């Protein structure tokens, strides 16, 4: 009996250390390395650095204002009034948030060209459909602060902190990149502290669903026509990029030049995607890396759920905090932290050379997946009646049979939701990928970027459409009850 108790504690210690090594240790390494006099001086004295940091903050603030300006009327329109097609449009409007951010950004690139704002605004509109306005505003701020793909692709010469960090890293100025990373992390933590103050509770509360009042039908015909038109207008505006993406993906290389509509439409780009080994490679890479990272994130979250909810170990709050931490800091911070921590061979410091191997990208995806699987599985675990597992045990089922036949089927909704979100996030990741990829392990996002650089817009769009479809299918399966 004492042996069993000790096993629980042992498992809890092992999991806590593993999580700490994954999500805290790299940040600490960067923090320690950044305490370097010259780099800090360089950061403080160069005006470009301050400009980038300031740009990150003010763009995030403007995103909040714009998102509110569009999102709040939209929320009113869709939640308060009933008009023809309201339900369908509501689902359509939610779609962009479910799809990979990169796909959305690429789509906007084709449609709205160099306007970086709109992409950010649109990515965060749905949180504003929720009643918790303050929470949604802070969520917008955090999302915008951490966003990388939009400024990277739209930004041109204009730098925000996330892109600045990656540029510095690619230029080989590691100490400075670390100082920049710490600066961005500090701003994020500051934002988080403010968010916690306004919400007073969990950082993910803002993602929660509010209770909407019953929509009321509009009596006057003219007003009804107006709201219908407004609703459809918004929906088309939001989905136009995706439709454009679909159209562009059907146009062969060099076929569409000055015409308003493309003269040729065929599946040439898709054929090239699936027949050329070099183009299929990134697809396969992304799929297996996303699958592996999701599977491990699910396994770790299950272990955490058992220890936190079922065994109620003493430091369960710490385990929960470790799982949630990667959500709180921008992806760039983790990408740089992993790149620096795992490019040194020092086994005694628990640092190994993983950069340049096939391990590092799944590891990075895993870190980003932990909050998603952790959240879903812990929530389901809390609702799981412990006597179900005891009933299985009293009927002779051992630990593994109980897990397979009772616990997992009961955790399925939260597990599927968390896993599908994690899988889609890994599939569309660009922040970690751009810092950590090698040619052999290049994921789809990197391939899209290089296609764009070669002006092969059709192939890039086809990649985007495939990514969008896979994501939509995975999320659809994950959301099924």
């Amino acid at each position, binding site marked *: *009996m004492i042996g*069993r108790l000790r096993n629980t504690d042992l498992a809890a210690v092992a999991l806590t250390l593993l999580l700490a090594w994954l999500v805290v240790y790299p940040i600490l390494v960067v923090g320690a390395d950044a305490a370097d006099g010259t780099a800090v001086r360089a950061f403080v004295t160069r005006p470009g650095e301050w400009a980038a940091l300031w740009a990150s903050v003010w763009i995030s603030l403007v995103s909040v204002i714009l998102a509110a300006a569009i999102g709040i009327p939209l929320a009113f329109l869709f939640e308060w009034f009933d008009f023809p097609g309201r339900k369908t449009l509501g689902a359509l409007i939610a779609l962009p948030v479910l799809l990979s951010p990169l796909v959305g950004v690429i789509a906007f690139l084709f449609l709205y060209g160099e306007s970086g704002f709109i992409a950010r605004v649109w990515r965060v509109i749905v949180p504003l459909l929720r009643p918790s306005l303050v929470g949604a505003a802070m969520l917008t701020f955090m999302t915008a602060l951490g966003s990388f793909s939009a400024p990277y692709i739209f930004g041109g010469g204009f730098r925000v902190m996330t892109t600045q960090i990656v540029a510095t890293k690619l230029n080989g100025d590691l100490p400075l990149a670390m100082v920049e990373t710490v600066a961005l992390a500090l701003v994020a933590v500051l934002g988080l502290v403010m968010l916690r103050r306004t919400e007073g509770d969990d950082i993910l509360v803002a993602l929660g669903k509010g209770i909407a009042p019953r929509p009321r039908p509009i009596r006057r015909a003219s007003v009804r026509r107006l709201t219908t038109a407004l609703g459809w207008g918004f929906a088309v505006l939001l989905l136009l990029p995706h439709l454009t993406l679909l159209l562009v993906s059907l146009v062969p290389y060099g076929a569409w030049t000055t015409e308003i509509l493309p003269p040729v439409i065929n599946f040439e780009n898709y054929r090239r995607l699936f027949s050329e080994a070099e183009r299929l490679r990134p697809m396969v890479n992304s799929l297996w890396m996303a699958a592996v990272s999701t599977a491990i994130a699910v396994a770790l979250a299950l272990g955490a759920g058992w220890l936190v909810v079922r065994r109620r170990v003493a430091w369960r709050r710490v385990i929960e905090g470790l799982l949630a931490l990667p959500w709180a800091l921008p992806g760039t911070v983790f990408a740089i932290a992993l790149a620096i921590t795992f490019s040194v061979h020092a086994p005694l410091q628990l640092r190994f050379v993983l950069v340049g191997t096939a391990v590092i990208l799944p590891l990075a995806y895993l870190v980003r997946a932990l909050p998603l699987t952790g959240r879903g599985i812990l929530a389901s675990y809390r609702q799981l*009646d412990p006597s179900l597992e*005891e*009933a299985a*045990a*009293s*009927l002779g089922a051992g630990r593994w049979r109980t897990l397979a036949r009772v616990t997992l*089927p009961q955790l399925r909704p939260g597990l599927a939701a968390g896993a599908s979100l994690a899988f889609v996030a890994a599939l569309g990741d660009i922040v970690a990928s751009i810092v950590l990829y090698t040619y052999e392990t290049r994921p789809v996002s990197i391939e899209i970027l290089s296609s764009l650089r070669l002006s092969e817009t059709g192939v890039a769009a086809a990649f985007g459409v495939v990514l969008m479809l896979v994501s939509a299918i995975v999320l659809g399966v994950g959301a099924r009850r």
Partner: protein
Amino acid sequence: MTGFLETQAIEKRWGHGVTVGPITLDIASGEILALLGPSGSGKTTMLRLLAGFETADGGRIAVAGEDVTTVPPARRRFGMVFQHYALFPHLDVGENVGFGLQGRGKGDEGRAKQQISEALALVDLAGFERRKVHELSGGQQQRVALARALAPEPRVLLLDEPLSNLDPALRERTRRELRDVIKRVGITSVFVTHEQDEAFDLGDRIAVLNNGRLEQTGAPDDLYEHPANLFVATFVGRANVFRGAAARALGSAAGNGVLVVRPERLRFADAGLPGIVRERRYTGVAAFFLVEGDDHQRFEVLAEPDAAQVGQRVYVEATRVIAL
């Protein structure tokens, strides 16, 4: 050591100085034992110790001479009916009942099917195999839980407040049916309840628990007529407690003992303990009269409905007293 299921000084220490036990019980083969006590008395802990869901901090548990103190629940072969039944919502009735029949060697499918239908027939739910759990009524769910626990032919059946989730009208009938099924199977059973009626009706013997300690074990009439202490006397059945002069007026031999008298063992007489009838509660065959004595202590007398009127001055005598 004659019992089939035995606990010897079994003990569970929770934090904050709360301890259940040491409790020594001796349950014969085929016997139904009720663990009766108020909430927080440790009866549920005791049941969970028997099931193996809690680990004992001292003492031992043995079944048929085998020490099972450290055997995990999955290998204890004890069936359990949970308070909220704990039926698996994602499985149908047949799969629920058959759950304990899987993973015990490669027995043929047909035999398992046979056992499932037998178990369901036992609880009068023949043909319910393909029903969904949430389509069943509370009473049916309770019977499925019983069939599921009995199907693997466990050595001991444990029941945690098996009737508390049923509405009162159904409870009494289900109680008899439950006892019939258990007696037909002949399985040694332990069940937890906080209701004296249930313990009396369902149990062959009753173990009364209070504050984590075993107060008394015995057959229902044993506990009622010969309670070991004041707690058992007042918790099991209605009881009037008299001390001092009032006790002496009712015929206490010793000068300052405590006297416990059941309401039906008091009657109105021409002389005895004086008092005034304050309330009358009519139950049909009889009535409870709440009498206030001259020392302002109140007590209950069970008598014929027209034995006295409210406000009337009466004298009360005892036909049988329990001296503690």
